[in-house]
Every structure is written in C-alpha cells, then in structure tokens.
C-alpha cells in the first residue's frame, strides 16, 4: 500500500525558475563586484555586501514583485552610471541624466511621483475606484524605483568627487529622508499586495508626502542636497547597517500610525464604507509594529556596538540614544498591551499615533532641540 503524497519541503516546492534566475543574477552581481572592487573593500564591507545580497534574494523569493523592482532598478542605475562617463558634469549634459536618471533628477522624479500617487490614492479612496488604486500603486512603485536609482547614482557620483570622499548616501538628513520615503513606501506596497487593498495607501502616502515636502524645502530653500565628505566619526562600516535598520523601524512605525488614523476614522464612522475592515487595519498595524520593533531593536544594538567603537562606551545616555530607548520602551509597552493583555481597538490605534510623535521626536526633535554626541560636536 503506497500513500501518494508529494513531500518536498514547503519552501523549495514553491520556488519557480524565475526565482532561481533572480538569485543567480544577484550572485553574479555580487561576485563581479567582489572581483572588480574587492581590493578597495575591507572584510566588513565584503561581509555586508554578501549578507545584503543573500538578504535581497530571500526578500525576492518571499515577495515576488520585489524581484522585478530590483531588476528594473539595476538596469536603470547601470545605464545612468554608464551615461555619466566618469564625469560629474555629465549630469547636466547627457539628456538621459538631465531629464530622468541623473542622481538629483531621479530624486526629483521620486518626489513628484510620490506626491502624485498620494493624490491618486485619495481619488481612489473617495471615488471607490479600483482602477485609480491600481494606477496609484504603479506610480508608487515607479517612485520607489526612481528613489533607488537616485540613491545608487548618488553613491557613484560621490566617488567621482574623489575616492576619499565617496561613501554610501545615508550620511545626512537629506539622504535619510529619501531612504525613509522609499522604505516606507516599500513596506506599504508589501501590505497592499498581501491584503489586496488600495485604501490604506491614501493614509500611508500622506506621511511620505510630508517627508517629501520636507525634502523639497530642504533642497530648494537650504540647498542641502550637496554631497559632503564624511567626518571621521562617521567613517565606519557600522553606518551601513545601523542607519538602514533604523529606518526600517521609523518607516514601519510611521506606517502603523497612519493606519491608526484610518482605524480611528473608521471606528468613528468617517469614511467607514470606503476603508478596509477594522480587523484588517488592526492586523497590519500589529505586523508593521512587530517588524519595526525587531529592526529597531537590531538598529539600537548596532548603534551600541558602533558607539563602543567610536565613543568609548556602548551606552552613554546621549540624548539620541536615550530617545531610541524611549521609543523602544513605548513599543514594548504597546506589544505587551496587545500580546499579553489582548487589548485591541482604538486604544492601540491612539497609542501607535502617539508612538509616531515619540518616534518623530527621536528622529528630528533630538537633533533640533537637544545636543549630544550624535552631533559630533566633540571632534
């Protein structure tokens, strides 16, 4: 007697040819980079490159649309880099760079597309239009791609300014606002895809649009978009992992707060017939905080490790550090409320909105109102 049942492990069973091709492209890219630029990288940079490649492969396997985004981004970025011909001035001369793919232009496109997507998500929400929702979603994807292309070319351009000046573009407020925008958008797109609902976009994109507003003001009023060399305290591979991990946290927390707003509106009967189920909003809010909390924990620990190397102690009660702890404690309390006490509903929604206030203060307020080691005032 033979029981018929296919018994491969679940993960492998679900991988298709495209997944393997995608992985192969990543690995080849990674090997090429190591071969061509390995001489200029230290062991940590190489480690980060390999780990990031594996991470992105896993992410693409886990969430399929991510693969296409990576491929398009790679093609556009490589094309842009080719068009630079090794000269910064090309950004003004080559048509492709000037109007579409140059680092600064791409970032402007990203900004424009995010704002447009926000409007259209609202049209979709108010007009109950599935089509508009899909369109807004495509725009958001395009914005993410443009943001990534802008960042990658910026990274390249920084090396054109001088080999000792070149660095990953996550070293100042201007750059991390871009990071924040497309990171939040990516998280949102993931939930949109999984829950097949466009209505959340109207709310989540609002916070991105606000970030874009700041970015534009910062660009045009303060001219903060220049690439600056790194001060000694920032010259560390820890920056490459500490900062992005932090922004996964910030992005997720913002997303959950915006869903909190949607939740409260719906439970008060506002837009009630247009917004998704409360259960679903609650679920996404929880998931978003959970992933944010995980990454924020990692980011804080990485920060402590970095501080141990740069400042002489893993914890100095520097205002930024302390506020990271406050944010962390706040969400730890949130999670206890939900997981242990089983609290649901408006309380948690309000709390996650409050959480965004705390997070924003930790992100911006500390820089503006408090001083500390993070301002690198010492050296």
């Amino acid at each position: 007697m033979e029981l018929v049942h296919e018994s491969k492990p679940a993960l492998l069973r679900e991988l298709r040819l495209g997944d393997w091709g995608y992985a192969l492209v990543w690995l080849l890219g990674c090997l090429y980079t190591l071969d061509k630029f390995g001489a200029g990288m230290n062991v940590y940079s190489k480690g980060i490159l390999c780990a990031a490649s594996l991470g992105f492969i896993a992410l693409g396997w886990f969430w399929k649309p991510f693969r296409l985004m990576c491929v398009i981004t790679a093609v556009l970025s490589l094309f842009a880099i080719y068009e630079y011909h090794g000269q910064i001035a090309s950004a003004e001369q080559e048509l492709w760079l000037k109007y579409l793919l140059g680092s600064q232009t791409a970032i402007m496109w990203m900004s424009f597309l995010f704002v447009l997507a926000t409007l259209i998500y609202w049209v979709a929400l108010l007009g109950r239009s599935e089509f508009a929702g899909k369109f807004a979603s495509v725009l958001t994807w395009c914005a993410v791609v443009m943001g990534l292309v802008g960042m990658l070319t910026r990274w390249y351009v920084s090396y054109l300014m001088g080999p000792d000046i070149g660095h990953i573009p996550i070293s100042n407020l201007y750059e991390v606002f871009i990071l924040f925008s497309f990171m939040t958008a990516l998280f949102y797109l993931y939930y949109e895809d999984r829950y097949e609902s466009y209505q959340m976009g109207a709310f989540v994109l609002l916070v991105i649009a606000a970030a874009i507003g700041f970015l534009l003001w910062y660009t045009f009023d303060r001219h903060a978009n220049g690439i600056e060399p790194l001060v000694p305290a920032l010259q560390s591979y820890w920056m490459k992992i500490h900062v992005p991990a932090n922004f996964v946290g910030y992005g997720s927390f913002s997303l959950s707060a915006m869903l909190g707003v949607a939740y409260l509106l719906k439970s008060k009967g506002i837009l009630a017939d247009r917004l998704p189920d409360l259960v679903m909003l609650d679920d996404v809010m929880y998931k978003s905080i959970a992933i944010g909390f995980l990454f924020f924990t990692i980011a804080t620990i990485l920060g402590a490790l970095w501080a141990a190397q740069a400042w002489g102690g893993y914890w100095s009660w520097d205002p930024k550090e302390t506020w990271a702890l406050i944010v962390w404690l706040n969400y730890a309390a949130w999670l206890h409320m939900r997981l242990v006490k089983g609290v649901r509903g408006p309380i948690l929604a309000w709390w996650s909105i409050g959480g965004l206030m705390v997070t924003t203060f930790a992100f911006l307020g500390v820089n503006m109102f408090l001083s500390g080691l993070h301002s690198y005032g010492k050296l």
Partner: protein
Amino acid sequence: MRFAISLLLVLAIASIIGTVLKQNEPYPNYLFEFGTYWFDMFRTLGLFDVYHSLWFLVILLFLVISTSFCIIRLSPIMLKEMKSYRERSTLSSLRHFRFRQELVTSLAPEQSVRLMDKVLAGYGYKSRTQIRKTGQLLAAKRGSWNRLGYILTHSAIVIICIGGLIDGNIPLKVDQFLGYKRIETRDMPESQVPSVSRLGSNNLSFRGDVTIPEGSSADVIFLNVANGYLVQELPFIVSVKKFIVKYYSTGQPRLFASDLVIQDKKTGKSKSVRLEVNHPLTMDGVDIYQASFGDGGSHLHFLVWPLTGASTLTTPLDGIVKHHEPMTINGHPYAIEFDDFRKFNVEDLSQGVVKAPSSFMQNILSVFSPAAHKDQELRNVGPSVQFKIRNAQGEAREYLNYMLPITLGGHSYFLTGMRDNPGASYQYIRLPLDDNGNVNSFMQLRAHLDDPSAANGIASRFAKKALAGIPNMQAMKPKLAQISESVLALFRQGGYNALAGFISKDVPQNEQENAAQTYLKVLQGTALEALNEVIPPGTPIKDKASFVRDSLNAMNDSFLYGPPVYLQLQSFKPVMATGLQMTRAPGKYLVYFGSLCLVLGIFAMFYIRERRVFVYASSDGKVLFAMSSSRQTLDFELEFKKLSNIISKAFADNKEL
C-alpha cells in the same frame, strides 16, 4: 502585568528628564542657569546625573526583579507547553475549535493518521499518535520555539541590565557611601591628589578621560563624578608623539589621529601605535579611544595696542595657552588667561560676520552633516586665539581674536570678539586695515582723534577745507570748526551714544533727524581730515571714506570692549594635545550576549508562530481536522484554509487503496 507596562512607561519618562536637562555639566553652569533655589532642588533630586541617581537605579532594579519573577513563574509552564503535543485532547474539546473541518474517508484510522503524518511532515509539523477506543488521534505541532522567544527576550532584559550595572559605577558608589573613596573637587596637580581620591589600576570598570600635550605622557585618567573627579591609575604609560589632523580638499576634517607610545608598567615593554577615531585600541583590558583634541600649550606672541589715549605705543607680550600672565593696563592690574589657540578655523562668512553655529536650523544640519551646506560660504580664516582678561576683582571678559585679515564686503579687517559670559555669543569689532593689511593706520587715526590737544587744529583745518572754494560761506568757518570740535569731543567721550544724547537733549524734536545727519557728516569729515594728517604719505588706502566710517564704528564699539587694549597675535608655535578616553567595561560581554538573546527572542516571538493540528480519525470513517494557534490573526485563517484544502485533497487522492 499592568505593573510591567507601567514600569516601562515610568522608565521612559524618567529617561526623558535626562535628555531635556543637560547632564553632568559643571555645577556653576547649573547655578547660573537655575538660581540657587532650583539648583538645590534639582541636585537633591539627582537631576544633574539622572541615569546614576538612586531613584533611577531603583526603577531599573524593579524592572529587573519583576521581569525575573515573571521568567521564574512562566518559564516552566512555557517549557512544558513547548514540549507537549496535547495528545490528551478529547474529541469533544476538538469539536469546540473555531477552525475545524470534518471529512469522511474510506481509509482505516491508522491509515488516515499515517497519511496525515506524512502530509503534515511536509509542512514542518512534528506529531504524535495516540490510539483511542473509538479511533486514533494525531496531535501535531509546529513553531514551538515561539515560546522560547518569551524566555529569551525577558532573560535578555535581565542580562543586559546586570551587564550595564557592572559597568556602571555601582561599586564606586558603595565605596563612596562607605567613605572609602572621596570625590576631589579642588583644582590641583594630579600628583598631589590624595589616595582617598585615587583608584588602583585593578579597578574592575571605569570610563574616563585625559588630555595629553604632544611630547608629554600620562599614566592616569580622570573620572568625572558629580561636581568633581577621581584619579584612575592605569597599568601603562601613554606618551604622545604627535596629534594629526588631515583635511579634505573642501576644508572639512578627514582624519583625527594620535601617534602614541604605550609602555606597560609591569613588563616595561613599549609599542608605538597610531590611534584613530573609530579604531580604538586595547591594552591590558583597557580600551583607548581618540576622543577629542585641543591645545597643549602653544606659545603665542602678541603686540599689545592701546585702544584709548593719544599714544600708539605698542608693547610685546608672550603667552602660553592654558597659562596666565599678569599685565598692567592704564595703571590697573589685570591677568590674561590664554584659553585656547586654533590653527585653522573654517567659518561661514556668507552672513558677513563670523558667528558661532548655534542657530536652530544649523543644529539640525550639524547632526548629519556637521560640515556646511551650500548656502554657506565656508572659508578657512586662519588661526585664532581665545583668552580672558580678568580684573583685580576677579571679573573676566572673554575674547576671540583672529590672526589674519578677514575680508568682508570687499574690505579687510582684523576681527576681535568679546563676550562677558561664557554662554553668550561673541560681539565682534572690526578693525579696518589699510591696503597693506596693516592695522597701524587705524591705530594712528584712533590716537589722533583721541588726542584732545589735537582736536582744535583738526577742526579748524577741516572747516577750512570743507568750505574752501565756496566764497559766500567763508563766514561760517569758525562756526563749522566749533561744531567739528565739539562733535569730536562728544564722540571721544562716549561714541555715537554721546552724540545722540546731546542731540535729543539740545535740539528741538523736529530738527533732530537733520542734525543727526549733519553731525555724522561733520564727524566723518573731521576724521577724514585727521586721517590725512596722520598717515604717512604713500600708505595705500583706496577707499578712505569707508575706512573712516569703519574706523569710527570700531572706535564706537570699543567703548563696550572692556580693558582698552587690542592683542594682535603676531606669531605662534603650536603644541597640540590629544584627548583620550579610556574605558574598562567587562559588563559589555554580558550586554552583547543579552542583545543577541533579545534579537533572537523577538524574532522567535513574532515570526515563529506556534500552530497545532489535531486529526481525529474515528473508526466509523469520520475524520475531524482541527487547528489552533497561540495568536489567531488573519494569516492564520488563510493558513487554515490552505491546509484544510491540502488535507481534503490528500484524502481524495487516496480514496482507493
């Protein structure tokens, strides 16, 4: 539980206080800011060092204790749950599951159970079978590690806190409390600090700083505690050969490093090393960091110019940074304290004046890009020296003088800044320079204008020249000369203020505006005359009118400047000092281990979901499939549907055996 959440929030709020109030500043700063009443209050509450205050540590302790109890209480239960398959579940209890499905099959119970075992194994389930009277039960589970997440996260909290407390100053606090150690608050050479304020080199954990000038060495560091310090002895001697700063082509610093020789006291062996920011060094369990830098006693040479009186006689003055020199100004005794010397100063000149970067927006900017953004016009304006002039009563004013001419709006100046309290920003005086970059012309003009015996002559020559060639105005000459002389006298006494005072007192209201204009013109004309008289022929000053205006402004500002001397920095011999931070923190290994547990625990808690599946195959061919999870989210509903389809399909595929 409510207690745990409250504790988390109380800790969060307590932490906020320490970020709003600047911590561990020297006590006089607080006293200055808050006044005695609040200062005493805040000090009693421990607000100047919140994170080491008793109450803060007590909250932390509560957190650790309550979490520990929680772990002790819940861990056994969790571990038991982890292991258990719940194979005792009864059919009737399974019928109450929210997620369940009933099927009919022709398979015998043991076949059904075997089939299900195989199917579920493919999805990562482990299972146990139990034979019952009326059929067979397959109890399967997956993701039990989830429970370990709770234990890991909470143990992590306890481990991290213990590690932190080891590295905190608890042992020292105890010693202090028992009187074994005492904080030193006096300013004295390190070698004279008594042993009650010294800590041996075998001290378990510490964190302190030392500043060592180039060419010197140190074998102790200083731990800042409350309003004083303790001396920590080191197991080695650090000598500083050189401190190095390198710059990007844009002027921002690229590298801070120290070339050190470290000699072990026990073995006598020494080694040369270069210490850089972000690349610490470990020696005998002590981590050494490049933390800061400063002046290590540069030699400075000044020319002292008088700012009042008819003389331009200069005197030379030599000083060493961090030392002070006595000096007599106009017969009064003063002391000059040389605080700091900087060889490079990258400043923003776009606003027209050098200013300290302390504005709101600049603070934001400085966080991520301490360097400039494009609005600013950054320039290296060369060496500067910071010093205090203290009078016999002990009152001091602080000065900041730049050595090189600074060009603003097309003219060059020497800038000198003054402030009368350390929190204020500098007020700058611009001393105009002639086209050779020399301050001598200004000084000559100033002395000439400040000479009462010369005033009469200047005034009459001014009047003569001003009215020359205007035939019908010759009668006005004495009158103009008299105005000129009195304007000059007023200005000499009190600058523009004295002029304004005179006008508002002696001139009718509706004519004041006009009078002010006229007097200013007369003053400038008179000063121009004085300039022409006093500068040696051939001294190039292209724009004499603005030179005169700038000179008058500078003279006017000098009324608020303090002791009337200008110290012109002429030459220097720089000596840098490097600031090293040294720590010994054995608790960090616990903290890192705890952090690892924390991350693994959080991952386990959120991303390993515990799921249990029960399949009860009755002898009558009915199969009950029931599923549960510790957390019933939307995903779980989907997963149940998926699994139940797979199970239905498996039974369908195996209908006929």
